[in-house]
């Protein structure tokens, strides 16, 4: 997901404009998350407007929230939590899932059976429910959120990677590596991983979207990021009272969630493709 926008015909890749739009929106939110503290016009927790659910004005570009705080600043800072927590969680989930999945596929036998059954059992617990239980039990902190989200999405990543790796594992070049006497670690890292990175990246993008939505859902229920900080889901939750007034405070964070998730989907559906015709 970190491929630069310079991939083009010149580098032997074809990249559709839909994918580029997705990539640019993602990059936009990524950069916002990094530089947010330096560009917010008002401190996040400070009440700056005398009205609540204020309309869009030249002073408050995105209006004000239910306490009269500046919405633009809160959205920009919210990007840090939504993008940061989701990215951390999805990285952990996919790393664990892919490593375990490839190991299970290559080793096979009882290890494969045990891992698969255990993770299937984990998969059968509804994600939102287990998230609720964990957060209710140990309290909400950013670490707990990341770990919980990662654990919820590991079994899916495992299943996906294992299915891919099982197919690669039947190829003759794996047999050649085995008859050469190669160890499991080499086979996983050098023979299987390079052949499944494409689909795994696509899966990572999809899972990132799921995690953003689940995190927003948890925050909407008040179990996510705690005040005065707020991710986008929490922003929707705290300003839901503004819905009857048509306040921008409830619409804008929803749009932010939508723009991020849709752009990720646009990108993974239109990943740059290598052009095989060398004479072009």
């Amino acid at each position: 997901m970190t491929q630069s926008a310079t991939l083009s015909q010149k580098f032997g890749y074809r990249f559709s404009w839909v994918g580029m739009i997705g990539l640019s929106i993602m990059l936009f939110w990524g950069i916002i998350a990094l530089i947010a503290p330096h560009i917010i016009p008002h401190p996040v927790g400070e009440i700056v407007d005398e009205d609540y659910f204020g309309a869009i004005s030249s002073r408050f570009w995105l209006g004000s929230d239910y306490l009269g705080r500046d919405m633009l600043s809160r959205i920009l800072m919210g990007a840090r939590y939504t993008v940061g927590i989701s990215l951390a969680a999805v990285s952990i989930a996919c790393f664990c899932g892919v490593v375990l999945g490839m190991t299970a596929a290559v080793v096979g036998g009882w290890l494969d059976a045990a891992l698969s059954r255990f993770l299937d059992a984990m998969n059968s617990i509804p994600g939102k429910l287990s998230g609720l239980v964990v957060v209710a039990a140990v309290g909400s902190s950013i670490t707990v959120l990341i770990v919980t989200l990662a654990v919820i999405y590991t079994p899916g990543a495992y299943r996906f990677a294992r299915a891919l790796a099982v197919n690669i594992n039947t190829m003759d070049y794996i047999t050649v590596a085995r008859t050469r006497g190669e160890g499991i670690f080499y086979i996983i890292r050098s023979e299987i991983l390079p052949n499944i990175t494409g689909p795994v990246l696509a899966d990572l993008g999809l899972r990132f979207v799921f995690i953003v939505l689940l995190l927003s859902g948890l925050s909407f229920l008040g179990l996510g990021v705690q005040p005065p900080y707020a991710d986008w889901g929490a922003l929707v939750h705290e300003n839901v009272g503004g819905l009857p007034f048509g306040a921008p405070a409830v619409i804008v964070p929803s749009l932010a969630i939508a723009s991020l998730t849709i752009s990720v989907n646009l990108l993974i559906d239109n990943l740059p493709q290598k052009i095989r015709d060398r004479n072009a």
Partner: protein
Amino acid sequence: MENLVEVRDLKVEATTDSGRRVEIIKGVSLDIAPGEIVALIGESGSGKTTIALTLMGYTRSGCSISGGTVRIAGKDMVTLSERERAGIRGTEVAYVPQSAAAAFNPAQRIIEQVVEVTRIHRLMPAEEARQKAVELFRALSLPNPETIGGRYPHQVSGGQLQRLSAAMALIGDPRLVIFDEPTTALDVTTQIEVLRAFKSVMKKGGISGVYVSHDLAVVAQIADRIVVLRNGEVQEVGATADILTRAQHPYTRELLAAFEPKPRGEETVVEERKVLLEIKGLSAGYGPIQADGQPLVRAVQDVSLTVEKGRNLGIIGESGCGKSTLARAIAGILPASSGTILFDKSELEGSVRQRSRDHLREMQIVFQYADTALNPAKSIEEILGRPLMFYHGMKGKQRDSRIDQLLDMVHLPKTLRHRRPQELSGGQKQRVNFARALAAEPKLIICDEVTSALDTVVAAAIIELLKELQRELSLSYIFISHDLSVVEAICDEIVVMYGGRKVEEITPAVLKAPQHPYSKLLFSSVPRLDPSWLDTLELDPELVTTYGHR
């Protein structure tokens, strides 16, 4: 007499994934008279299937006819509308694909699929169509013609299915039938039956045919005229006998030369005959182990053989005879259930995991499909570099120069080292596949059908390479193939396998006189470059019923 098919200056273009347009058929013209069978012959990529498909006005996705005319009985297939073409397909022009197994719907009974053409074109009532199908089954000498249509595709053999797909093509009484490599996937013993059936049906009905193949010997049996193609251009056209005996074009001669059986030549002089590999009573198979200690499906039973240093052993047999399983058991990929493997005087463990690194290094296996044997995500350099580092601990400059040496040994340019496998041709990939085995500096290389996926000319070059490497490096090969001419060309001893057992061991001196009945059938079933071979061939019917898969 007016020609049934007249193709004039046909051009087909393909669009590559970068949007570039490439001409793949460059102005081909050919005629087919009524009742004549014309063969299109050439290596893969020569455009033979593309031309055959244009006779139905069809091009594969990404391709389009960019010029010329294709007249079938006076109608130009290029300018007709798609609806008009659909009316002609199946009734005037029909198609028999290479893989009948992939062309049949596995969920429907065969008869339903055979009579489908008559239903689509509303040619005749269903009952009449069924009767006609049964007649065709009889004409194609299928067993139980009355009832075979009631079976599902997986319930008949490959050769039968290929004949059934011919019945499917013939039921609409077409004037032209296109055969696209219909016997390439079949065993030689089966191929004879299928060829005979095709030939008699076509002759009886006076049907014109286009026979696409890369196998000159097969084409010699069935075609009246041969069109030799290369890179989308006609190289030579002529009557079958003329092409075989008085070929004008150098490329045709090259094709013919690749077909001439090249005996092993003068025997390599080995100072003293030392046994390299000795296998005693080896059995192997698949599935759970039964009470007697043997697996459920026994693919190889009680096979013993020896390979001497610097000499080659060929293993031959039809598909399913257990020859590949035997190779896997020797290499330790599939541990043998019983028997001993003695390699260079020490006994080998059954499984790869228990063998020492030196034993693994000294015995390398090369697989049939270079496409799946080379990791598509790695460069040639990485593929060849890994065994060098793994077995010999080579690094940096030393490894680089050794990779260059290896590429040189298999006659590949050094510039290929940064390419990926999919950027190489089939023959080049197979050479890389060999270079990787050579990198280990082995004593024995097991070659599992290494030339079967290659064109005749390319395969002949690979065989030459193997012989050359053997002279230089004093290697031994175990050469597994279903193709007798390939095995004859390179092996000192030949083991014939049937049904998982070794039926006979032959040395080239007595090669022409195999003793075991199955060997006799197998050896006499290999097509010759003689147009009258099929018609004069007499096979012992008892042998055919015992060993042929009818």
